[in-house]
């Protein structure tokens, strides 16, 4: 055999070969499968209205939920601070999962350690694990701060982080001064977004309290001019860059509170460091003196916002993810109001260009029925964007959507937003529902497009709806998180993604006379 004849097939084509098709058939008798008829009937039934009704009446089983657990968010939050090591107190498998999950999305390393609690810790508590863990992790990974969160195990047995950390200091494992922030994040409460919030609040309050300073909002020659900005549980590193661009154009000073973009967008230089970028620890107590705080995920950052407007007594503006033209307008208006600075001409120009692009594409978007899945703040932004393009949101599923901010619940806000537009009249917002509910919705009330994370791909495929991947996690596409989806530039990116998906559909489905050159 000549070398050129080597035909190497991998799983994408190998198993389509006749010998593997045959193998599949030969294996069936041992599987004792349901008959083809039974399977076909069950499939048809699963797509029926009757099934949908049953699906929506289930009370307890959760199928394909669109949420992760609290400590995952805490790990991401901890990585937003300079040389900070995320430290997970509980069973070590959790930490392995957080590291894999985040790495699969960002295609980047996730440094994080665990106390590796096992049966004996379940009985006697995890104090020794925590003390040893602090000693080992500080020696090996040389963080400037450790940020501890709990898992469900540590919470169920009632481990007391505050006293454990105190005992580690008494034992001399870490010095009295060494910063160790912490938060409680049982996995049976909230979701990844509440865990993110808990850790941000934990770190801000800890660093502020230990600094001994007392914030005077809007005072101080230097810090008083600064604006604090929080992006929240942000799966797009590109959004940090876009926000920096916008704030730079305003020429305002600012502090991003929780900036994990450095850790999740580090260069390949031949050397690996554990920590890249992040909010400087010294900037945190100073942040209490800032002019104001701008939060871009109000439902995610609920407790942090309460803390900032309460303890720091600081002016707070809380928005949802600023997507679309109007969402970005609101962002710029808010920055302008908070800083007293005018909206930069360069951004107004950019706005005009993106509006122009929207005009070019609107015929392909108008009236397109879409299904949306995501975290609350992302969904508010996405709904707004869809409505301003003439797209019609139809099914909106938010597994972790039972969050309120200032007594406005996510669902109420989403419904009000939809009710205010003729394009929102067909929409239904489903909070606390999962992607198996979404499957029924997609199959029983067809849409043109689904927007959501990679996990939505199964339901979208069953309903033969193209999926535009937006949100977290995106496992099956590369580099999406590097492109911003916020601001005018982000709007353009989102528009390009969506309109080109629709145009690709046209090419896929059209042939002959309407396989057209110009669109």
């Amino acid at each position, binding site marked *: *055999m000549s070398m050129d*004849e*080597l035909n*190497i*097939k*991998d*799983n994408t084509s*190998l*198993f389509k070969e006749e010998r*593997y098709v045959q*193998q599949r058939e030969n*294996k069936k008798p*041992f599987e*004792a*499968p349901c008959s083809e008829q039974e*399977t076909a009937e*069950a499939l048809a*039934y699963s797509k029926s209205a009757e099934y949908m009704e*049953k*699906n929506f009446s*289930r009370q*307890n*089983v959760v*199928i394909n*939920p669109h949420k992760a*657990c609290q400590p*995952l968010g805490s790990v991401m939050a901890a990585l937003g601070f300079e040389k900070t090591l995320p*430290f997970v107190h*509980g069973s*070590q498998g959790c930490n*392995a*999962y957080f*590291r*894999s999950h985040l*790495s699969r999305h960002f295609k*980047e*390393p996730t*440094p994080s350690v*665990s*106390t*590796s609690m*096992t049966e004996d810790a*379940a009985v006697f508590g995890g104090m020794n694990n*925590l003390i*040893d*863990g602090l*000693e*080992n992790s*500080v020696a*090996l990974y040389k963080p400037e701060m450790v940020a501890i969160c709990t898992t*469900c195990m540590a919470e*169920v047995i009632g481990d007391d982080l505050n006293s454990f950390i105190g005992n580690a200091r008494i034992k001399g494992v870490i010095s009295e001064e060494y910063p160790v922030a912490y938060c409680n994040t049982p*996995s*049976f*409460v909230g979701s990844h977004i509440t865990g993110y919030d808990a850790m941000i609040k934990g770190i801000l309050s800890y660093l502020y309290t230990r600094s001994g300073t007392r914030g005077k909002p809007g005072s101080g020659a230097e810090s008083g001019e600064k604006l604090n900005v929080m992006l929240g549980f942000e799966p797009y590193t590109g959004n940090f860059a876009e926000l920096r661009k916008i704030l730079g154009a305003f020429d305002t000073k600012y502090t991003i509170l929780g900036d994990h973009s450095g850790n999740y967008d580090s260069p*390949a230089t031949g050397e*690996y460091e554990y920590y890249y970028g992040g909010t400087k620890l010294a900037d945190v107590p100073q942040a209490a003196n800032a002019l104001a705080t701008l939060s871009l995920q109000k439902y995610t950052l609920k407790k942090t916002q309460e803390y900032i407007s309460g303890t720091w007594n600081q002016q707070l503006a809380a928005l949802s993810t600023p997507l679309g033209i109007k969402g970005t307008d609101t962002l710029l208006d808010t920055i302008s109001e908070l800083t007293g600075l005018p909206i930069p001409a360069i951004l107004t120009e950019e706005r005009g260009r993106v509006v122009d692009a929207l005009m070019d594409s609107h015929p392909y978007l108008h009236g397109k029925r879409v299904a949306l899945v995501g975290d609350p703040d992302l969904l508010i932004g996405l709904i707004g964007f869809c409505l301003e393009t003439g797209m019609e949101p139809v099914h909106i599923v938010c597994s972790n959507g039972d969050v309120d901010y200032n007594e406005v619940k996510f669902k109420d806000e989403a419904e009000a937003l939809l009710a205010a537009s003729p394009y929102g009249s067909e929409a239904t917002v489903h909070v606390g529902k999962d992607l198996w509910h979404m499957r029924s919705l997609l199959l029983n009330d067809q849409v043109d497009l689904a927007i959501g994370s990679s*996990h939505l791909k*199964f339901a979208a495929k069953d309903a033969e709806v193209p999926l535009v991947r937006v949100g977290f996690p995106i*496992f099956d596409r590369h580099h999406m998180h590097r492109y911003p989806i916020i601001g005018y530039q982000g709007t353009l990116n989102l528009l390009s993604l969506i309109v080109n998906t629709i145009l690709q559909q046209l090419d896929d489905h059209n042939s002959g006379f309407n396989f057209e050159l110009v669109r």
Partner: protein
Amino acid sequence: MGLNIEENQKLVEEILEAYPKKARKDREKHFQVADEKAIDCSTCAVKSNIKSRPGVMTPRGCAYAGSKGVVWGPIKDMVHISHGPVGCGQYSWGTRRNFANGTLGIDNFTAMQITSDFQETDIVFGGDKKLAVIMREITEMFPLAKGISVQSECPVGLIGDDIEAVSKKMSKELELPIVPVRCEGFRGVSQSLGHHIANDAIRDFVLGRAELAETGPYDVNIIGDYNIGGDAWASRILLEEMGLRVIAQWSGDGSLNELEVAHKAKLNLIHCHRSMNYMVDHMEKAYGIPWLEYNFFGPTKTYESLRAIAALFDDTIQENCEQMIARYKPVMDAVIRKYRPRLENKTVMLMIGGLRSRHTIGAYEDLGMDIVASGYEFAHKDDFEKMLPMLAEGTIVMDDPTAYELEELTKKMNIDLVGSGVKEKYVYHKMGVPFRQMHSWDYSGPYHGFDGFKVFAKDMDMTVNSPVWDLVSRQGKMEPEEAGV
């Protein structure tokens, strides 16, 4: 640094100096540099299957990951409840690439996340009542599900829920096999105990529950192949071509019935011995079924294994085996002719689960590559004893190596290829070191059998020889002379 026993011993000592005293003392026990004595008599000094140090970046996961993620999850026609809070099920959802035929959500539930999504009230009042309702709802939602397993997460064991009682009661009510699996993540020190617990559950609740219409002299089981990227299919095709009849495939693309009839086999063929040795041991004792560990990574090991398997059968099978090898050998030789020159003498460091760090050695060697360090995440003593004779003197052997240790070894050993998991992968990309994700074949595969070796060879060449590594530094890679090697 290459394969010098003393130098490498010194290297390990130097690396471990970074640890505080207590942890250093522990970590020292997890390393061994292979010397003549260790290789010949496989005197394994490496401590394994004991607790990881807190605060280090251990590569290990937990018992739940071992049971749901590895053993039970791939059984395609059963619904596996991730019983407890939402996270564990979410993180293990569809990430291990256990391919399975069937219609997802209808008669195949592998790439689904079915959870009880514990809330605070479930912790306070217990989740048993909810579990019973969940089981009823599962039969409503998935009428073709052949059975249910309950994969316990940490809180279930801590709050003392009686999932066994619920399973028993509901199994009767729903007339379905329902298997409680006590695989709470805090049990044991790694995934390994999860495998054991999962195997015990198969033994106690499933094995021997059904009969085969007819049995034959060539009936065998594939045990411990999880069909990552289609591995089990690429293995099965060889066994069948040889004239054997595979009656059960565990657990990749496996079904409940296959677990139930497996006791009728004449021979158990076990690939991942680490995760399913409990099963073959039990079946040998309970049913008198002999077993054989085989290795389908790389042609050399595959030929050896095929012949060892055939030797347990009659002349017909042995003849078939030889004919088959004769058919495939030219193809395998061509693969080696093509790729070996590109990979000759490249150094490899492996740190994978509990088996592949030794099982894949032959495949690398077929391509002319040299293993210079090899370690496991969650292996036991016997795995090290089996690995040592396969290694050259001076090779560093390690158990549960931490992220820090692997990084230091890579920096100091002139490694050309690292094979490990997704948690490690991107670290090596930063370092500019060729890396292959060897838990799920880096989204490629299969790697088993002859069809698999072609993909393996192509992937290793692609990885080691990609021009991207030369882009890391503007100066390009230093010439070996300049590096002083």
